[in-house]
């Protein structure tokens, strides 16, 4: 695998953020929101480019930085979207921003999804937990360029039916040609219209051709592990199964050591890995 991550723009001083402005704030759910940002420096704005699956470090003044995936389309006008779940210090602070507010941004960082490799192929996307941002970028990317890709299955698993956001979006996607949305909840409740149980139960229902498909996985490690083996059993080639990994991240440039996942630094060797690259560690306690 030699998919090197491209270098970001702000390279002369790898730690120094650029100033960005909040253009739009969208509340997706009580704890999930989307920040649409724009670099305030026109030149930086022109130079900025990224690939789906890459991420930025967002800085909230006086509080700190967090790694957040870019969900907008790389070809979009120069606006950079981030969908964020407010869980802790920084992200809860980001949730209080309003249009016009300024923050810091540096990036993009990391190795994104294999978008070139899977042109013309079927794609199966498996996500778990609350709205998994990194794959939203892929879904948008494929839907924007629908003809360039084969069949698309989106499988979303949630613990509880209440955790599902973007219900309309899923319903809409499901109506598109060659596109299928499958949803599972561990605890569905009486009126849950979708599957009760695990996402892996749904693989057999997918419309994609396992022999010609790429898989993109994002979610809790246990789920990704189970999904990887399930998909490989289904007939996908292991090197076509991709996973987006997560570890604590401080610097995003491979210096701080926090995002080590075995031998890899998730910030620069990932966050997206192919299954064979990390199968030796997947699901191992303490790695």
């Amino acid at each position, binding site marked *: 695998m030699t998919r090197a991550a491209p270098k970001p723009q702000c390279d002369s001083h790898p730690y120094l953020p650029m100033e960005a402005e909040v253009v739009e704030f969208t509340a997706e759910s009580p704890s999930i929101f989307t920040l649409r940002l724009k670099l305030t420096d026109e030149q930086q704005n022109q130079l900025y480019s990224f690939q789906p699956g890459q991420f930025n470090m967002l800085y*909230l003044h*006086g*509080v700190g930085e967090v790694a957040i995936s870019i969900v907008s389309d790389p070809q979009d006008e120069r606006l950079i979207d981030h969908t964020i779940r407010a869980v802790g*210090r*920084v992200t*809860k602070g980001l949730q*209080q921003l309003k249009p016009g507010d300024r923050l810091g941004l540096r990036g993009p960082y990391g190795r994104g999804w294999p978008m070139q490799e899977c042109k013309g192929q079927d794609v199966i996307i498996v996500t778990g937990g609350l709205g998994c941002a990194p794959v939203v970028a892929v879904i948008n990317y494929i839907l924007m360029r629908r003809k360039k890709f084969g069949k698309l299955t989106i499988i979303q698993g949630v613990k509880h039916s209440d955790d599902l956001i973007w219900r309309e979006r899923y319903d809409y996607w499901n109506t598109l040609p060659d596109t299928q949305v499958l949803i599972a909840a561990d605890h569905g409740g009486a009126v849950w219209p979708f599957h009760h149980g695990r996402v892996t139960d749904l693989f057999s229902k997918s419309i994609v051709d396992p022999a010609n498909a790429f898989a993109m996985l994002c979610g809790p490690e246990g789920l990704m592990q189970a999904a990887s083996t399930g998909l490989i059993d289904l007939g996908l080639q292991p090197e076509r199964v991709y996973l987006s990994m997560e570890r604590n991240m401080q610097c995003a440039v491979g210096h701080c050591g926090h995002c080590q996942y075995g031998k890899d630094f998730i910030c620069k060797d990932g966050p997206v890995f192919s299954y064979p690259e990390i199968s030796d560690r997947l699901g191992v306690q303490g790695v």
Partner: protein
Amino acid sequence: MSDKPRIAVHKFSSCDGCQLAFLNMGEDLINLAEQVEIIHFAEAGPVAEDALVDIAFIEGSVVTAHDQQRIKQIRNNSQYLITIGACATSGGIQALKNLAADAADWPAQIYGQPQYIDSLDQSGAVSDYVKVDFELWGCPINSAQVVELVNSLLRGVSPIDHQDKVCLTCKQEQIVCTLITQGKPCLGPVTRNGCGALCPSFGRDCFGCYGPAENSNTIGLANRFAGLGLLPDEIQRRFKLVHASASENQRIIARDLTQDLAQDLAQESSDE
């Protein structure tokens, strides 16, 4: 009315030392007063014990029936309740009383008219009685902790819970380890950082005034102290000072170390 956050500083059973983290701030005390509205802080002047506030800081432990009512009232009146210092957070040095078998008799032993003394058998942490939103550890806490905390609250984000070990500070500051070079029973490896490794920087072993750190292996350290030649009673006294009530320290205090050591020795000789 200003829209600045309203704060209160309440005192329970304590030495007043943690309130000094405010009063010893120097210029920052005046800066702070510009950022917040101080509603109740008896030692500094304003008295309004029952006012509604955004943030209530609590110093001291709960030791009387009246204290119990008072802390509940404060909880009801405050949006955030934050303990400052060992007394409020873990019961503090007063909690040594909790470990004494005859503590209930102390007032009678001491005061001519003990019926006038309102004192519970226990010195309790505030969290024994009401929900606490955040705890500042330390005996005493310092001004830097207060400034950092207030900074977070003013920005509407949760404060940072520092819980790494004193050892990390020692090494960053290039302070020489007292345990390694002098064989002293230093509690640094199980104590929260935040003080700046003051004791080791003055050549002495940390006695744990900032309380247990995250993942504190007090049993491992107690065994090491035994290896350094400390007797069971000395080992227990190490863990029984400022945060005697903390569960990590109780693991050592509430244990019959003489028994354990005897077993260990027997084990060792049978291994040979």
